[in-house]
């Protein structure tokens, strides 16, 4: 059937390839392992040199991440009632008492709302636009598509100051809506272009069959096109989410209080009571999780999505 021939690789080339891939995986996973393990180290262990590979795990970093702590005078510390929870105890061991919860929880929640919100909006608008560009005669189609692409030609941060001023005037600074709109604006061009490619690959006949089978254009889109574009939508969603989740510069500039996301918050942990690397690492670990889980859940689609359309069927 195929016009090209494929030869089974030899045992030796398989071995070499396997070694290379393993080496690459180790190099890539190293920083990740470092962060995750540092999160479970105690303060002294985290900065010991040479670094400790084997250490006694501690939840100090995680407790410090979610709390603010304070020192009290030595004689007062002696007279305190015994700690009533495990995290109290961990804080006491550091010679401090818990003053209250930290803001990490709400910052993390902000990241979730803004990241997933803008991803949803980008995908929703992107899919509809891509479908229209793919299927209908849109006046000035090529120019519009180029315009959409051109919004990516400049690094977004180059327009940071105009956006800052505009957001201040519009009252969008430091709001969830403002950040969702901003990330959507950046992601939408990627979404439209990627999704258009995926939808172009879906033969029109499927929709036409549905139209003839008695469905309206919108039903055909929902019941026939969407399931088949699922792969493309999933991989586009991952790209959008990764951008919105990791974005740092605009988050620093435009958010400070209510809508601050996790990326600008995590570095501020460093300054609280000395360089608390376990807490920073714990924050980074938790921050990694949603994108990691999202990617693992969609990995089948993602893999297909990356190679989709690469081979002419």
């Amino acid at each position, binding site marked *: 059937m195929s016009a090209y021939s494929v030869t089974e690789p030899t045992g030796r080339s398989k071995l070499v390839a396997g070694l290379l891939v393993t080496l690459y995986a180790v190099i890539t996973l190293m920083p990740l392992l470092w962060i995750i393990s540092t999160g479970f180290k105690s303060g002294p262990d985290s900065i010991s040199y040479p670094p400790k590979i084997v250490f006694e795990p501690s939840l100090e970093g995680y407790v410090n991440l979610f709390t603010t702590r304070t020192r009290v005078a030595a004689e007062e510390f002696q007279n305190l009632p015994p700690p009533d929870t495990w995290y109290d105890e961990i804080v006491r061991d550091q010679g401090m008492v818990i003053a209250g919860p930290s803001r990490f929880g709400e910052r993390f929640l902000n990241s979730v709302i803004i990241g997933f919100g803008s991803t949803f909006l980008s995908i929703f608008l992107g899919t509809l636009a891509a479908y229209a560009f793919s299927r209908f005669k849109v006046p000035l189609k090529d120019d519009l598509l180029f315009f959409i692409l051109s919004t990516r030609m400049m690094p977004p941060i180059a327009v940071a100051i105009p956006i800052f001023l505009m957001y201040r005037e519009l009252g969008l600074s430091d709001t969830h809506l403002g950040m969702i709109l901003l990330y959507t604006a950046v992601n939408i061009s990627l979404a439209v272009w990627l999704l258009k490619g995926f939808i172009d690959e879906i033969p029109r*006949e499927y929709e036409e*069959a549905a139209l*003839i089978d008695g469905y309206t254009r919108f039903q055909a889109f929902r019941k026939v096109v969407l399931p088949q574009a699922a792969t493309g939508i999933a991989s586009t969603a991952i790209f959008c989410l990764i951008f919105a989740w990791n974005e740092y510069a605009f988050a620093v500039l435009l958010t400070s209080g209510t809508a601050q996301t996790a990326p600008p918050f995590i570095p501020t942990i460093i300054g609280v009571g000395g360089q608390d690397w376990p807490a920073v690492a714990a924050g980074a670990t938790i921050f990694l999780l949603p994108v990691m889980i999202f990617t693992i859940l969609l990995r089948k689609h993602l893999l297909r999505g990356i190679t989709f359309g690469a081979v002419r069927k």
Partner: protein
Amino acid sequence: MAEIVIRNLRKEFGAFTAVQQSSFTIADGEFFMLLGPSGCGKTTTLRMIAGLELPTSGQILIDGEDVSQKPASQRDIAMVFQMFALYPHLNVRKNIAYPLVSQGVAKDEVKRRVEEVARILRIEHLLDKGVGGLSGGDRQRVALGRAIVRRPKAFMMDEPLGALDAEFRELMAEELRALHDRMGATTVYVTHDQLEAMQMGDKIVVMNHGVVEQFGTPQDIYDHPATLFVADFIGSPAMNFLRFEGSFRAGDTSVSLDGIPIATPELQAEAAPRPLVLGVRPEHVTLTDDSPYRARVEASEYLGTTQIVTLSTPHGMVKARIPSGHVARTGETVGLSFTARSLSLFDAATGRAFRTAANAGVHHG
């Protein structure tokens, strides 16, 4: 079931006219072929009947109702696509049930009708399989199942055998025709394969460059082509064309090729001297020594019971289909005679056939 009337149908895509002023009638229960080379507008015509394209002008009447500007979903028509267009995310059962689900048919009824259709098409064992792994023929049957399950007014088929292997095509062609005969449903079938059209169709429309060249039964079209295009497109080997200068009057029963009279059906038109084309099917050429019209044998191909002999005449090459017992040696000069009542006479400039006693009843597109 339905009668479909096409009136002055026209479709333009920007500056390009895909279909020009087509008119024809598809009778109730007919197996109707839209035939022509690629780009002739046959698929566009089918898509307009189905409602996938809206005509620029003209009317499409299904059972007397003008549906030309209605969406596909309101026309009650089923379609089988060339690539079958089975929904890849649904299994066979769901694919077949899909049109019923859209009409809100009750679950039990859907199940019953899907199974009935599966039985007719002999695909009961495939119902719970995915469509991905099916063979071409089984996909074809599923696509047919999805079309017939609805009991629509008419079926549209866009080269449904085009994606099948040659050996399988024959079998499916027979199955399709048998299915049609059992259900008696009006069927419009697009093909570029003249043999398929002749073999399966009750009626054929031959199209070229968006124009309906001829409309009629396979026999009429084969025996009495209305234009040079149809004459050339239908039949294999194609009709022979003898090009000559000449004139005739109404009532004449022969034309003169460089002084040699050739008997024709009685001519009902007249023509001043002009370039003419005499059309003769290969099977209507006989090799006789006593004919004054001489030709030289160039080659012969043996086909079992018959042979195709290629001859050069003063008016161009001629292929003759003659019994293989007849010996025709290459280089030999022989006389040719033609079966008079089967000849067609065309105006070389317009390409149209002149009216004769033979083709008088034939509809000219």
